């Protein structure tokens, strides 16, 4: 068991770290504190740089032209990419590209031509529509959007909430109930185009994230061709579930990145700020906060890398993914909170990124499955079944 980074991983991490500090952070000095987008000219320039580095489209499989970087190394990179003001929800403002919706790799050839390949080329953008007003923690049972077969089409009626990017997307992956009697075995996944009659983005849902907002959707007799069923009818939940487990690893990595940067700021401030004639760094209360931060960061880091390592080896990692998601999101919140405490009044201001991280990292304990659901997942695995 080797806990050290390989030489290649060390070089990659160092390269990304320099990129964030030399290219991203200076641009943020001129942006609104809540910005999530670069000026187009800066965006294009930095995309060209990530392509030149061979890091563009990190999670695109090699067979589709991706850089073929394993998930452990990608996790290490994600930790670095989050270490700036917008880094939690918009790491490096998207200049590293990405596969978008991983479910599309399971699409049939026709669907790949219409959705996957244009997405990989950056020509089309999609959203993931799972959560409904009736609940998000138990999506298989909560889904009330119905799809009824009508000739060669399916007709969808219902609504979704907390859906990111739907107002700007060209298409979406949407889950609907196709068999009311079958519970999670009655869910089907559809590819819908934003221009289809009956597709509505009703409102922006304002949250603690000021820019990376969510939306509420409504489907009114939305007619979808049978050729837009992704996977098999009534087997959509497996598609959703696979995505939820995989997503928990980079989700955790973002929290670790922000926590790492917050800790770096807290240490630097404690070593230069004086109170009552001496540095904050000499105060036991501050020292303990910094130590507790480090324990939180390292615990999160090793659990997340352990989950990524299992995913890389192709062995089951559901428990590990749930554990790292639970620990990294909660620990990250504590670290940012302590860093703000050390910074005093300045920590509350928009002059520093701590204020933004504090708001945004709170969502992480809910998004991608709340802490309580992560415990439920682990309990089921540990106990070998559902003990309700």
């Amino acid at each position, binding site marked *: 068991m080797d806990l050290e980074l390989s030489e290649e991983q060390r070089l990659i991490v160092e390269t990304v770290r320099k990129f964030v500090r030399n290219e991203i952070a200076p641009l943020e000095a001129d942006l609104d504190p809540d910005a999530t987008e670069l000026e187009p000219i800066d965006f294009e320039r930095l995309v060209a740089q990530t392509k030149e580095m061979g890091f563009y489209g990190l999670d695109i499989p090699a067979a589709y032209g991706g850089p073929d970087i394993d998930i452990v190394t990608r996790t290490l990179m994600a930790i670095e990419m989050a270490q700036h003001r917008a880094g939690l929800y918009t790491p490096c403002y998207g200049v590293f590209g990405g596969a978008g919706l991983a479910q599309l790799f399971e699409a049939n050839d026709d669907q790949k031509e219409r959705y996957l390949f244009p997405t990989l080329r950056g020509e089309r953008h999609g959203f993931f529509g799972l959560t409904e007003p009736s609940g998000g923690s138990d999506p298989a049972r909560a889904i009330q959007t119905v799809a009824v077969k009508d000739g060669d089409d399916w007709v969808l009626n219902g609504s979704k909430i907390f859906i990111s990017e739907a107002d700007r997307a060209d298409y979406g992956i949407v889950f609907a109930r196709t068999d009311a009697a079958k519970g999670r075995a009655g869910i089907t996944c559809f590819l819908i185009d934003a221009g289809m009659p009956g597709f509505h983005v009703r409102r922006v849902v304002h949250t603690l994230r000021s820019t990376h907002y969510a*939306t509420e959707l409504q489907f009114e007799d939305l007619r979808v061709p049978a050729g837009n069923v992704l996977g098999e009818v009534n087997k959509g939940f497996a598609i959703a579930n696979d995505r939820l487990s995989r997503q928990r690893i980079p989700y955790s990595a973002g929290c670790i990145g922000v926590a790492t940067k917050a800790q770096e700021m807290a240490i630097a401030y404690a070593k230069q700020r004086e109170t009552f004639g001496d540095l904050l760094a000499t105060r036991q209360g501050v020292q303990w906060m910094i130590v507790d931060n480090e324990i939180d960061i390292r615990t999160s880091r090793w659990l997340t890398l352990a989950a990524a390592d299992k995913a890389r080896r192709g062995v089951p990692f559901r428990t590990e993914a749930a554990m790292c998601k639970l620990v990294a999101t909660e620990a990250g919140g504590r670290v940012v909170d302590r860093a703000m405490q050390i910074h005093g009044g300045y920590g509350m201001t928009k002059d520093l990124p701590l204020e933004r991280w504090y708001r945004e990292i709170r969502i992480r304990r809910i998004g991608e499955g709340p802490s309580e659901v992560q415990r439920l997942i682990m309990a089921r695995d540990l106990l070998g079944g559902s003990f309700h």
Partner: protein
Amino acid sequence: MHLQLTKPWRPLTEANVAALGGNLGVYQLANDAGEVVFIGFAGGKSLFGLRSALAEHLAAPPAGASQFRVEVNQQYQSRYRELLMVHRRDTGGLPVANRDAPPVHLGRLS
């Protein structure tokens, strides 16, 4: 919260702007007919929030703006985009003075 701003219009005068607080938030400018000609926000980098953001329009009001209304809002970025999207949904386009520099990747409502 209403999707559209609903507060009454106030004349765009130095005295009215000076009376504003330094809060973050969003605002609209309108012409004499009450047509919205510009939607903006006072963000975290503004010196005195809505007061300084509106003061910048006093010298050269865009598109003949003569009145304004504000909404104090910490979520000024998403609220700003929402107001633009609502305006586009309701009128078919952006306010005239926003058309030169709309936000990147503005979404749509229907």
